[in-house]
């Protein structure tokens, strides 16, 4: 396990902070990685989930089994791949299968504990849009689409979301529902999951560049921890609804020296994810 000693204190919420010893993206990645403590099998998505999961495997969760939708179970990547389909996730893995089996026998079968998703838009119930901004037929922005996200959201036992927060991304109403979260609320979602035989229980955590959210008993996102240097005003300014805030709002512990070293030296030396 990594040491938990912080390298530098960033000032919190009082005027102009001193130049922090870590970036907000680094804090987001570290916070997401820590949420994976105790998890067993994790589905790794392209982009930020990729670095967060690889960091978790090197810190809080060394026994984590990495599953890549490309068809790999038990990957031991020697480097952080740019794409999620990379030769380094294959060499030395436990099993490589067709995508029919990966999506059918692993994901839909309920063998994935945590599915990690990014999002272009998310609403208060964790419903996700990665398809279009604007009208579907004539979109303002054409996004990548579902990929495996729709089936991860439905079939992974829990869903973790990692994304930067902004007024354009945390919205009252998403333009397109690519991946179901808690639908219109926890009660409705629980009923549909039961009736449909879904094995997943939906979104469980959202980690942003500002804080960490879990979902309360109504199925709505609740801010449980604010990252060092982030303020509630910033959170409110970057959300399309009035956020619920935990009564015992915590401050996220800063990245440790070892976490930062792993990100900067091993996982992302070119700073692709962290700048």
């Amino acid at each position, binding site marked *: 396990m990594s040491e938990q000693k912080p390298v530098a204190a960033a000032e919190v919420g009082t005027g102009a902070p001193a130049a922090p010893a870590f970036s907000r993206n680094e804090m987001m990645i570290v916070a997401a990685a820590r949420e994976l403590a105790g998890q067993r099998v994790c589905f790794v998505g392209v982009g930020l989930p990729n670095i967060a999961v690889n960091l978790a495997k090197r810190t809080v969760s060394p026994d984590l089994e990495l599953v890549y939708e490309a068809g790999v179970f038990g990957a031991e990547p020697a480097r952080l791949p740019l*794409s999620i*389909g990379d*030769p380094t996730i294959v060499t030395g893995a436990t099993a490589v299968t*067709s995508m029919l089996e990966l999506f059918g026998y692993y994901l839909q079968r309920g063998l994935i504990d945590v599915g990690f998703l990014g999002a272009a838009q998310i609403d208060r119930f964790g419903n996700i849009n990665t398809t279009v901004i604007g009208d579907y037929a004539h*979109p*303002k922005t054409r996004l990548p689409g579902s990929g495996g*996200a729709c089936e991860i959201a*439905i079939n992974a036992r829990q869903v973790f979301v990692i994304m930067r927060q902004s007024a354009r991304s945390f919205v009252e109403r998403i333009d397109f529902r*690519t991946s179901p979260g808690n639908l219109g609320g926890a009660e409705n979602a629980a009923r549909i999951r039961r009736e449909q035989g879904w094995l997943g229980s939906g979104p469980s955590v959202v980690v942003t560049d500002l804080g960490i959210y879990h979902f309360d008993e109504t199925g709505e996102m609740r801010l449980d921890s604010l990252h060092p240097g982030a303020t509630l005003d910033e959170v409110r300014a970057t959300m399309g609804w009035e956020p619920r805030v935990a009564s015992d709002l915590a401050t996220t512990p800063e990245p440790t020296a070892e976490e930062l070293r792993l990100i900067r030296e091993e996982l992302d030396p070119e700073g692709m994810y962290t700048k």
Partner: protein
Amino acid sequence: MSSKVASMRDAVADLVRDGDTVAIEGFTHLISFAAGHEIIRQRKRDLTLARMTPDLIYDQMVAGGVARKLVFSWLGNPGVGGLNAIRRVTEGPDASLEMEEYSHFGMVARYTAGAMNLPFFPLRSYFETDLPKANPLIRPIESPYGDGTVYAVPPLRPDVTVIHAQRADARGNTQVWGLLGCQKEAAFAADRVIVVVEELVDEEVIRADPNRTIVPGIVVDAVVVEPFGAHPSYVQGHYDRDNRFYRDWDPISRDPALTQAWLDEWVHGVASRAEYAAKLGEERVTSLRPSAPAPSGVVDYGTYR
């Protein structure tokens, strides 16, 4: 039992026809850029391009003017950004490229239904999403066992599927290791199949390890031997993914003029994959070789007489 070995030029000329549904499959691994470039060079028209991840290859083919429609599940340059040539013809009021969109499992299930000659394939995706509204071919189907409704997707039966592989024999018996994607399903689903390989091997190599075969020669129409034919994608054990190329494509593809200049130089300007590799240069090619071998080990099938 005659050889199916053909040049890429002949294989594409004979087997790919204007208006066809073409699937060049391979999930990040083994993408036959060589076939895509030959299709551009031969100025095929009105193709429906099916692929889970259109990737740079369909961005280039769309820019090259061969496509009428895309069938896909994830549209992007992984880890880099969007597919800019495709975005130009799919965003805004002048969007001209037809789109038919699924999720990854939906696309895999479509190929599987095609490979199995099934009228549909059921899956648990799509419920409570907007995807069935966006694509009316995603349809609900009730379980005959009284346990609710799931969604179905229809079979996808490409006119032509192209796959790249480490090796095949002259009859088209094809072996792959590393990521398998949905190539097997896409090949069995297709009417015609082109296999592009790094290496042509004797039948005995295939028969020594029959569990490694993903596609039998019986479904293969042409075997094209084009080493480095998957660049900038990769071939497990042969060469690495050229991530630099994936990054470089982003600024090129943002500018229509640069994009066309690139196609002129690297597609129309070369006659074959060998010329493309020579133009890329020995240093770049060598830099993509694995740093060391990682042998699989040997298993024993035993002789039984």
